[in-house]
């Protein structure tokens, strides 16, 4: 799968940072004190900037409406990374390596949803019709890189979530 490695959070990230700084040699050209210090600084910045917050309602809505599988996120990541390029189903399939038919169906579905536009040649280009769609796609791709497990859970536990949403509708005071 394309994308970065899974990164730990909070307490685990502090341990990871310390372990990387003082135990594991950083693989940088300058492995002296300056090299270790800069590596430690990068790890600290990662630790401070990774969020533990739940997915935003807008992102949950985007996933609920447009994303039904991990393959679809991968396809969206690929086409959104190069908005100027026209992608055919075959080209996307060569990168994703799932099934050419499902890739073609996904591209068509994204086109109908307004995320892509289709050219006469049968190729697709990433061109969301609205700011909400563009923002949703960008947030999803970013969240998938940083919080893959949460995103996958959000996609695949959807039927029970819908049932629970129905039950939660009758709570007069909503939890924040």
């Amino acid at each position, binding site marked *: 799968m394309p994308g970065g490695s899974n990164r730990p959070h909070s307490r685990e990230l502090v341990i990871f940072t310390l372990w990387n700084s003082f135990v594991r040699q950083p693989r940088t050209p300058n492995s002296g004190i300056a090299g270790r210090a800069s590596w430690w600084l990068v790890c600290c910045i990662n630790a401070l900037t990774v969020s533990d917050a*739940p997915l935003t309602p807008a992102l949950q809505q985007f996933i609920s409406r447009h994303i039904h599988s991990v393959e679809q996120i991968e396809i969206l990541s690929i086409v959104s990374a190069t908005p100027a390029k026209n992608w055919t189903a075959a080209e996307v399939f060569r990168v994703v390596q799932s099934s050419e038919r499902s890739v073609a169906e996904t591209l068509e579905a994204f086109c109908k949803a307004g995320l892509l536009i289709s050219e006469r040649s049968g190729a697709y280009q990433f061109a969301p019709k609205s700011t909400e769609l563009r923002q949703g796609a960008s947030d999803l791709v970013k969240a998938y890189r940083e919080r*893959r497990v949460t995103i996958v859970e959000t996609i695949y536990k959807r039927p029970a979530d819908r049932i*629970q949403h*129905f*039950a939660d509708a009758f709570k007069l*005071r909503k939890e924040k």
Partner: protein
Amino acid sequence: MEMAKAMLAGAIMAVAWAILVFFLRFWRKTGDRLFVFFAAAFLLLGIERIIIVVLSSDHRSFGYLIRLFAFLLILFAILDKNRRGGKAAAGTSQSKAPDRDSKRPTLG
């Protein structure tokens, strides 16, 4: 006209009982009592339809009484849900999604 009323009543009963089956399934899946009350309400709504068609106009108020019970059940379900503070037997609130990412430390 009477034939149309009877057909509509039969269709409503069938659909109401199909919905009842779904609510019972949800109750089994989530353990939330709300679904049992809704299932019972739709059972009564199905029965009410048939009773109104079968009984003569003098006794139709009995059918409307059943409708009253059905809606009282729905009201009770809502009150019960809020009284419990939303803590169903197995259901969880949508804001309590567990942050699974923090449980996967990777070192390296």
